[in-house]
């Protein structure tokens, strides 16, 4: 009896071992959303699909119009119009409203869209849904831009002058007319007013001179720059100015128009009239501010109320192809959470209608997948426009001279890169959902650069050792760690933020393999403010973060993964500072960096979009040859949830901070099916 029991137990043991060894790595369980279109998601080699064309639509094309007699409105607004509180719909809409093509079909009115925001500084949650009405807007796939508030936005031959035509008859949310007077107010009384604006934003500066705004008539004006500035429209698709200052309302807070403005400000507790003016001009602190948005907040953000509701704007200037005034949905309701956990709980319980921000992470995917039935929602994939999911950026301008020399040595970086087992990290930390890759633009996109994406991604301790030997680190100490030129051990600290819990795990794996080639790595997890503070002061050695600038137009707008273009750049902040301040601060970069910066300056002046793209590709090639950062893998897809009764939501979303997803997908045409 005893012997047979032993045999059975051994057999079971063996069986268990065999089963666990043979179970395939956790593959993504098929979500109910249709098959994903980009090949970068599944762990297969990326097959080049037809490269997406970049397209910009900014000229005065013939817009689809709807006959005014066919305009229809939400039932609640019909009531208001009947009782005389608001004018009839034909008077509320501009002469040529913007026609929004629905994602699937024309919708019906009604419903409340519930979402969650986290903390007291989550304004982006509003900006990404409704507070995105610039002159030009991005296309949903980030391949170009379209006219939005502007009916047309035309450049002259050398792109130094832009003529903008607004929509005649368009109104602010309080019913007052929206005209070029509001643009003039912004230009003369905000931008050029030294109390409010110490220095105009670089968007409005070309050739060192600030833009000149000339008003032609009630609906047309021009931006006149001192030189060619082909990049301007791209910048405008991301900028709220010049149409976010309703003149008629704000004049009462401006000392030029109201001599009592200063007193009004101090009475209300503000420190100066400028502070009061700024507070009054911000839509989420002052809910009486007239806006052009589809919904407007009814209580200010930051109050004790844990629920904020944004209600329909009766004067919203967009319609669907059948003439129904948008938005379809009556209200957008935000629950303000203090921590993500309560938001996750609400979402699992089906109390969030459509969202991916804050909780749509790989770590949460399985619990949301399991709760689909109970919560009445389905998951949809969210692809990333990041250039990489995790990068170890050497701070090339770090203060210590020996470390700096080491980090600036390309062979050293190559060696470190070869000594990373990316496949293992992807399988263990990223659920097998990514491919090994360096920081690079989308491998399926128009800026794809194969060398940049795949160089030094092989895991080879031999090649790593060879490169490190070539870098001059031939001496080793008793424990096998290499020694620097000053005799100290090659020991680097990588600072990683608590914002990315997976990164620290990955870095601990990197530590193991780097030890094998004689490099000591300390993984320091800290709060992100400290991390960024230290990087800004050039005190970090290695800085761990994601990499933006991978998908769509992000490559051109956010190039800091390729060369440092600002003081907060991920690698070499001092060189970025030098570029941003035109040499006033920071440190002069080496020749290759300066070349990229020169090309980028040129890029911004090019009138033709194709020329801008060509220059960007040149910059990318120089960056590929320089190889500034050591990165792990492309960013895996994450997910979002949408309730089963919510329609016209796209099947997938492309996420990028500059794209302000999902705003370019026209949330005003989402609706609830009856």
């Amino acid at each position, binding site marked *: 009896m005893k012997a047979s029991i032993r045999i059975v137990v051994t057999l079971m043991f063996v069986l268990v071992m065999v089963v666990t060894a043979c179970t395939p790595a956790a593959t993504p369980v098929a979500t109910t959303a249709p098959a994903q279109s980009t090949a970068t998601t599944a762990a297969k080699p990326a097959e080049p699909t037809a490269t997406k064309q970049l397209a910009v639509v900014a000229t005065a094309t013939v817009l689809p119009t709807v006959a005014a007699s066919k305009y229809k409105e939400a039932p609640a607004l019909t009531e208001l119009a009947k009782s005389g509180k608001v004018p009839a719909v034909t008077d509320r809409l501009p002469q040529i409203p913007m026609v929004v093509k629905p994602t699937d079909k024309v919708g019906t009115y009604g419903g409340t869209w519930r979402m969650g925001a986290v903390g007291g500084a989550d304004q982006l949650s509003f900006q990404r849904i409704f507070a995105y009405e610039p002159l030009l807007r991005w296309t949903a796939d980030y391949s170009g831009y379209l006219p939005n508030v502007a009916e047309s936005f035309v450049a002259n031959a050398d792109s130094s002058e832009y003529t903008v035509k607004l929509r005649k008859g368009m109104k602010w949310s309080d019913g007052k007319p929206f005209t070029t007077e509001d643009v003039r107010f912004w230009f003369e009384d905000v931008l050029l007013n030294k109390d409010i604006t110490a220095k105009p934003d670089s968007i409005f500066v070309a050739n060192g001179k600030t833009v000149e705004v000339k008003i032609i008539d009630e609906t047309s004006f021009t931006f006149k720059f001192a030189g060619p500035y082909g990049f301007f429209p791209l910048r405008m698709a991301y900028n709220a100015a010049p149409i976010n200052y309703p003149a008629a309302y704000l004049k009462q807070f401006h000392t030029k128009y109201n001599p009592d403005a200063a007193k009004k400000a101090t009475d209300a507790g503000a420190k100066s009239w400028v502070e009061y003016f700024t507070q009054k001009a911000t839509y989420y602190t002052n809910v009486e501010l007239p806006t052009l948005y589809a919904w407007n907040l009814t209580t200010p953000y930051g109050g*004790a109320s844990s629920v904020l509701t944004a209600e329909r704007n009766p004067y919203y200037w967009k319609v669907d192809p059948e003439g129904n005034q948008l938005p379809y949905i009556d209200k957008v309701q935000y629950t*303000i959470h203090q921590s993500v956990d*309560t938001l996750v709980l609400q979402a699992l319980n089906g109390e969030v209608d459509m969202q991916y921000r804050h909780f749509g992470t790989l770590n949460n995917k399985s619990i949301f997948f399991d709760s689909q039935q109970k919560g009445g929602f389905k998951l949809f994939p969210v692809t990333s426009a990041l250039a990489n999911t995790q990068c170890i950026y050497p701070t090339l301008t770090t203060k210590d001279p020996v470390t700096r020399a080491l980090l600036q040595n390309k062979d050293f970086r190559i060696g470190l890169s070869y000594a990373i087992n990316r496949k293992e990290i992807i399988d263990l930390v990223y659920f097998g959902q990514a491919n090994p890759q360096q920081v690079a633009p989308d491998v399926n996109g128009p800026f794809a650069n194969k060398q940049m994406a795949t160089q030094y991604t092989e895991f080879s301790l031999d090649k790593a050792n060879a490169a490190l030997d070539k870098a001059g680190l031939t001496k080793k100490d008793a424990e096998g760690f290499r020694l620097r030129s000053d005799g100290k051990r090659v020991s680097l600290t990588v600072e990683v933020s608590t914002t990315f819990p997976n990164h620290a795990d990955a870095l601990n794996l990197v530590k193991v393999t780097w030890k094998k080639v004689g490099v000591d790595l300390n993984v320091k997890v800290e709060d992100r403010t400290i991390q960024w503070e230290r990087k800004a002061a050039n005190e970090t050695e290695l800085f761990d973060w994601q990499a933006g600038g991978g998908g769509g137009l992000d490559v051109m707008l956010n190039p800091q993964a390729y060369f440092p273009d600002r003081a907060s750049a991920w690698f070499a902040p001092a060189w970025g500072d030098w570029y941003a301040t035109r040499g006033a601060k920071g440190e002069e970069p080496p020749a290759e960096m300066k070349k990229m910066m020169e090309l980028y300056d040129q890029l911004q002046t090019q009138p033709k979009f194709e020329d801008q793209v060509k220059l960007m590709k040149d910059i990318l090639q120089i960056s590929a040859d320089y190889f500034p950062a050591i990165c792990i893998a492309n960013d895996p897809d994450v997910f979002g949830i949408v309730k089963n009764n919510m329609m016209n939501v796209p099947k997938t979303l492309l996420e990028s901070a500059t794209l302000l997803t999902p705003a370019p997908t026209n949330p005003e045409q989402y609706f609830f099916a009856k």
Partner: protein
Amino acid sequence: MLRYILKRILLMVPTLFVISVIAFIVIQLPPGDFLTSYINNRAAEGTLISNEEITNLRMQYGMDKPMINQYFIWIGSILKGDYGYSFLYRRPVSELIWERLVLTFVISLVTLLFTWVIAFPVGIFSAVKQYSLGDYVATAFGFLGLSIPNFLFALVLMVLAFQYFGLSLSGLFSPDYVEAPWSLAKVGNLLQHLWIPVIVLGLSGTAGMIRTMRANLLDELHKPYVTTARAKGQSKFKTLLRYPVRAALNPFVSTIGYTLPNLVSGSIIVSVVLSLPTTGPLLLASLMAQDMYLAGAYVLLLSSLTVVGTLVSDILLAWLDPRIRLSLRG
């Protein structure tokens, strides 16, 4: 006695002054200031923030004066009753704190009552029926609440409520009731949400009180005067309450001082985890953003309440315990 009270009140002024200096220094200690952490946060989120915007913000917020000047400006306006302007929320500080004060007070008061109502009788019961089954059960529950971290306990309760009752109990009201006017239904909704924070916060306080009560009472119960009182014919209940319990109350009354600031601050971490709209998360947010005026005013408020509360509890103690009254007289 009166002289003692007057002396204490006079001592409050330098105490508060020292506290204000320390608070100011500590809040400013982390590298950078409100603007740098604001800028770094925006940059970390991927928002393109330009150098010019930074210059503009710096000018707008007036963050260019040296530390000492900033301190005296701040303290000067506090004394005038002006608590300053919060950079983070762009509103006057007094408005921000006032809005949340009532709700915080309500939660803390209910928690306090819950703790006392449970702890006193159970503590007395534990002492009187020492080593009985009831004693063990009560003690076990108490220790359970004491040893599990508050925020973990809150999360567990939330998950249990979700799994078995299908309720997501975050915050104090369901989204539909938050803006609605007060009605019976709204009160019902509040009670439905209130039990989690009250239990989480109350249970750990209960354990401490039960054990202290029990220990003190056990000391007193074996003293000769209790036997004498019983021998003279007094009922068990009356004996218990009139003498030993009064003596055992000493440590409770001396900690009343801390309940006053607690009533106002609530428990910060539990409030954050449960998304309660109280003053706790306000303090956390302001400290993380280095919002000097909001954080500073809040810390000063709490310190003043602590100092006042300690005085109140000392007076109460003197009233309760004749031994202390006599020692104060000199």
